[in-house]
C-alpha cells in the first residue's frame, strides 16, 4: 500500500473543502468546509507519522483537533451572534466592513 495514496486523498479533500469555503454562502456550511480542510490535514499528518515511523505527526493531529474544537465553539458563537442581529446566516450579508 503506497502511503502516498493517503496524501492524494488528503489533497482532494482539502481542495474540496477549499471549494466549499469559496462557494457556499451559509456560514455554517462554510464552517463545515473548514472542518473538512482541517480533517484533510489531519489525515496528512497521520500519514506522515506512518511514513516517518514516529508518533509526532499523530500528536500534531491531536493538537489540530483540540484547536479545531475551540475554533468551532467560538466560530459558532459568532455565527449565532450575527444571526441574532441580522436574522441571516449568509456570510455575504455581513459585508459592511469594506472600502
Amino acid at each position, binding site marked *: *500500500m503506497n*502511503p*502516498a495514496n*493517503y*496524501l*492524494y486523498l488528503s*489533497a*482532494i*479533500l*482539502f*481542495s*474540496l*473543502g*477549499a*471549494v*466549499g469555503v*469559496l*462557494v*457556499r*454562502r451559509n456560514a*455554517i456550511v462554510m*464552517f*463545515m*468546509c473548514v*472542518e473538512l480542510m482541517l*480533517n484533510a490535514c*489531519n*489525515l496528512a499528518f*497521520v*500519514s506522515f*507519522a*506512518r*511514513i*516517518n*515511523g514516529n*508518533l*509526532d505527526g*499523530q*500528536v500534531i*493531529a*491531536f*493538537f489540530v*483537533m*483540540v*484547536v*479545531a*474544537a*475551540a*475554533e*468551532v*465553539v*467560538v466560530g459558532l*458563537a*459568532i*455565527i*449565532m451572534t450575527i*444571526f441574532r442581529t441580522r436574522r441571516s*446566516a*449568509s456570510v*455575504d450579508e455581513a459585508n459592511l466592513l469594506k472600502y
Partner: protein
Amino acid sequence: MSVLLATIEQSGSTGEQIVFWVCAAIAVVGAVGMLISRRAVHSALFIAATMIALAVLYVSQGAPFLGMAQIVVYTGAVMMLFLFVLMLVGVDSTESLVETLKGQRIAGLALALGFAVLLFAAIGNVSYNFAVGIDGANAADGGNVQGIAHLIFDRYLLAFEVTSALLITAALGAMVLAHRERHTPRKSQREQSEDRVRSGEPQNLPGPGVYALHNAVGTPGLLPDGQPTDRSVPEPLRGVSAAVGVDHEDTRRVNALAAGGAIIPGKAEDES
C-alpha cells in the same frame, strides 16, 4: 469496531487497500455531497460520513487513539454542536446556490483545482520510505495511546498546557458571545398575569383538540361558547389547514355537538 479494523490492518496490505479505497470513496462522496447539498442539515450529515470514514483511515494507519478521538470529538461533539446551531438558525432554511459574487465560483473552482494539481505534483515528486511503518513507534511505549501520552506529557507538555488555556478562552469567548444582556428586569408572575388581563384575553389559548373527536394538532379548539377557533392551530398550519389534514367534517360535528346534537358513533368511528 476498532477490533474489527485492527483485524483488517493486521491482515496485511490487501486488507488495508480495500479499507482505503472504500473509505476514500465514502470520504470523497461525503465531501462532494456536503458541497452540493442545498440544506445545511444534509451537509452536516454528509460531512459526518466523511469524518467517520477518516476515522477508519486513521485506525488503519496505526492511529487508533486518533480514530477514536475523531469519532468522539468530531463526529460526536463538534457535529452535534453544528446541528444545535443549525436548529437555532433554522433547520429548514435552504440556501440559494445562485452565485452572487461575479466569477467567484469559477475562480474558486479553478483555483482549488490548480491547488490540487500543485499538491499532487508535490506529493508525486517525493520519494517515500515504505519500510519504516508506524508499528515500531507504536510498540516502543507499549501501545499507540501510551506513545501519544508519552509525547504529549513529555515533549509537547508546554503546547498541551497552552491548549488548555486556549480551550478555556474559547469557552469563555463563546459564553460572552452568546450571552444576551437583559435590559429590563425579568417580569414576575404577578406582572405576567396582569399583562394577560390587560390584553383582553385573560384565559389561556385553547389547547388543540379540545372537544375534538381525535387528538390532531390540525383540529381547532372550541371556545367556551362552542365556536371553533383556528388560533389553537399552529401558525404554519392555519392558512393551509386542508393540506395538512384539518378535518372540516370533524369541525362540523364538533359544532353540532356543541349545539346539543347527538353524535353518531358509528360514523365517527368510520372517519377516525
